[in-house]
């Protein structure tokens, strides 16, 4: 089948569109809770906390936001809906940080290694990345190092055809490190600008599979000095609090350089990513907002947080 036609909307709008269901409930609920209240009582704070938890921010992150609001309540008058909303937004932005640098692709052959649990959207993300860079006139090679899942290599090959990127891959069951080695060699020989490595999905609790990833990372580092230049963890926006444990384990074993948040076109907000950023200090680098080839975007904290909060009443575009 053909890929879906690229959506014509701008990404901000699309992100907001994707987040809109959440936005409705979040903003509306916040409004419902706060509007018309004379003072912010502990009960109201409890309700706000619940609201944050329902966005998958988790108990800890929600607590820090509530603490902040409580603090600000003492310092200045935070009593109306807007100032509370802004207060939450401010705190979240503080956590995520606003300096958003894109992918580090300055090396002659820049290597991006993509990891994550099963079904997070690794292969799709790689397909979109390949399309993006090929379109920019860069030469991309894809390494099909998911040699476990049936037809994973074929799936990547189809993405390769769509984007025009070369794909190095063998049959299912091949040694993934060998694929990485051959792909790195081929990328250098072909003078590729970017090598993207697709790995098999794995739960962070499988020690031997984590070891396999470490080996792949070592192998590519030997072939191309400094590689991988980006080690990205792909995270499904619907994931709950387990994502923090996942990210911690992947980071500990493989030293991540950033996160990719996928499937933000649903109603999930990926609130857990904020908790991960808070705990591990990892930047969110890319977000996936749809199934089309163009639906992968650079992350922008300001946009992300405000998209989460924009209500119908102050929609700007």
């Amino acid at each position, binding site marked *: 089948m053909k890929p879906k036609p690229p959506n014509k909307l701008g990404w901000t709008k699309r992100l907001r569109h994707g987040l809109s269901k959440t936005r409705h409930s979040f903003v509306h609920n916040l409004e419902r809770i706060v509007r018309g209240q004379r003072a912010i009582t502990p009960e109201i704070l409890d309700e706000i906390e619940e609201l944050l938890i*329902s966005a*998958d921010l988790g108990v800890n992150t929600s607590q820090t936001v509530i603490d902040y609001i409580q603090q600000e309540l003492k310092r200045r008058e935070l009593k109306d809906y807007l100032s509370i909303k802004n207060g939450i937004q401010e705190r979240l932005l503080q956590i995520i940080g606003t300096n958003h640098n894109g992918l580090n692709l300055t090396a002659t052959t820049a290597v991006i290694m993509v990891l994550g*649990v099963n079904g997070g959207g690794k292969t799709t993300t790689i397909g979109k990345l390949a399309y993006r860079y090929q379109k920019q006139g860069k030469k991309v090679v894809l390494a099909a190092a998911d040699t476990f899942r*049936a037809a994973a290599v*074929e*799936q990547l090959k189809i993405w390769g055809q769509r984007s025009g990127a070369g794909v190095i891959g063998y049959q299912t069951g091949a040694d993934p490190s060998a694929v990485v080695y051959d792909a790195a060699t081929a990328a250098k020989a072909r003078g590729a600008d970017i090598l993207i490595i697709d790995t098999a999905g794995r739960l962070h609790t*499988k020690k031997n599979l984590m070891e396999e990833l470490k080996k792949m990372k070592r192998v590519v580092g030997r072939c191309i000095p400094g590689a991988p230049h980006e080690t990205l963890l792909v995270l499904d926006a619907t994931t709950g*609090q*387990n994502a923090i444990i996942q990210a911690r384990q992947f980071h500990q074993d493989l030293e991540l350089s950033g996160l990719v948040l996928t499937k933000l076109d*649903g109603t999930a907000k990926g609130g857990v990513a904020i908790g991960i950023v808070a705990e591990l200090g990892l930047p969110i680098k890319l977000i996936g907002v749809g199934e089309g080839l163009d639906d992968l975007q650079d992350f922008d904290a300001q946009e992300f947080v405000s998209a989460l909060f924009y209500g119908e009443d102050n929609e700007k575009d």
Partner: protein
Amino acid sequence: MFDSLSEKLQATFKKLRGHGKLTEKNIQEGLREVKLALLSADVNYKVVKKFIEDVQQKAVGQEVLSSISPGQQVVKIVHRELVELMGESFRQPALAPAPPTVIMLMGLQGAGKTTAAAKLARRFKGERRNPLLVAADPYRPAAAQQLNLLAQQLNVACFIGAPGQTPLKTCRQALSQAKETAIEVVIIDTAGRLHIDEGLMAELTELKQALSPHYIWLVADALTGQEAVRVAQGFEQAVGIDGVILTKMDGDARGGAALSIRAVTGKPIKFVGLGEKLEALEPFHPDRIASRILGMGDVLSLVEKAETLYSEEQAAELEKKLRSNRFTLEDFSSQLKQLKKMGPLENLLELLPGMGNSKALKGLKPDDKQLLHTQAIIDSMTQAERLNHKIINGSRRRRIAVGSGTSVQDINKLLKQFTQMQKLVKRLPKSSAGLGRMRGLPFS
């Protein structure tokens, strides 16, 4: 953070000793711990709220029992309530009187539909029901190919429509083929879709109307957070759900999603996916997942696992051998094989209470290779050596080491362990109770 829930509760309730009854005031703090624990396990916040209210109601007024601590008492109440909320125990899905029984799987992208479909097919095949897998996902690249490859591995039939064909047409063709051949169960693997994607949801409704499947199961990822409820409601409202398959339960996610889906939709969880291998699909047991959510381990699953592989007679035979000191390396080897059948040691450990995330065990990775080495050593022995390990002298040890690719030290270690075990067994009490407990756990 979760394994410590019962410990936290113990600490919180310590001061309650000596109080006659649990009151609203003195369980408040404990219930806050329960609430935070449930939220961290991704149980939906609305479900948590309602749940805490219920528990509070049941707990208040109960006498503080002297035999167990108030903490345990509350854990017990919480556990019982969780089980109740989780719904009925597993029931084998009944097959339609006129075959084929049609099962349609649906869910978000990446939930594990294709893998779950293959696992179901394997299960039905094991029950001597002839399954047909139908690839009704024309969108994801190579999705049909993936299903086809899995079907080949299982040696079951797989139907793939012509390229570019609608899922409906594919399914219709598959059904008429199933009716002509001796297919008893048709499993339809649909494309992943968002519950808010109206176009794709309409496609499912269309499939439902045209095929009238006997079962429509939602495949849900155990890692899902608060979103689980919205997803389940979305699919329930648009298409209707008969049951749920929960995937990726082999990680350390607590599976609060399961509880939330069940509580909100009232639909039972049917199966859980516990690994990437195709046999890793098990019936859902409410009590076990309640224990897991509370970090209480899953001894029942472990015992049951052991039981299915270990008959009463085998156990009796083993006991006799152990008693009369006729337990040889050969028996040891067959024990190891049994143990291996129970799956990776890592998974087994997780089933033990407190093992799931215990800090002490964090670094301990039970080594399945160790078992393999031991097996290789025993396999490299002669029959005579296996029946009487005492004849294994230095030169025999060297030969065995070469044969098994290990070192003489390894052989020494194994033989030492084996003699120690024999001694240990001799010291066991004569009552069969002691050994009865060993039945399931060969060398615990």
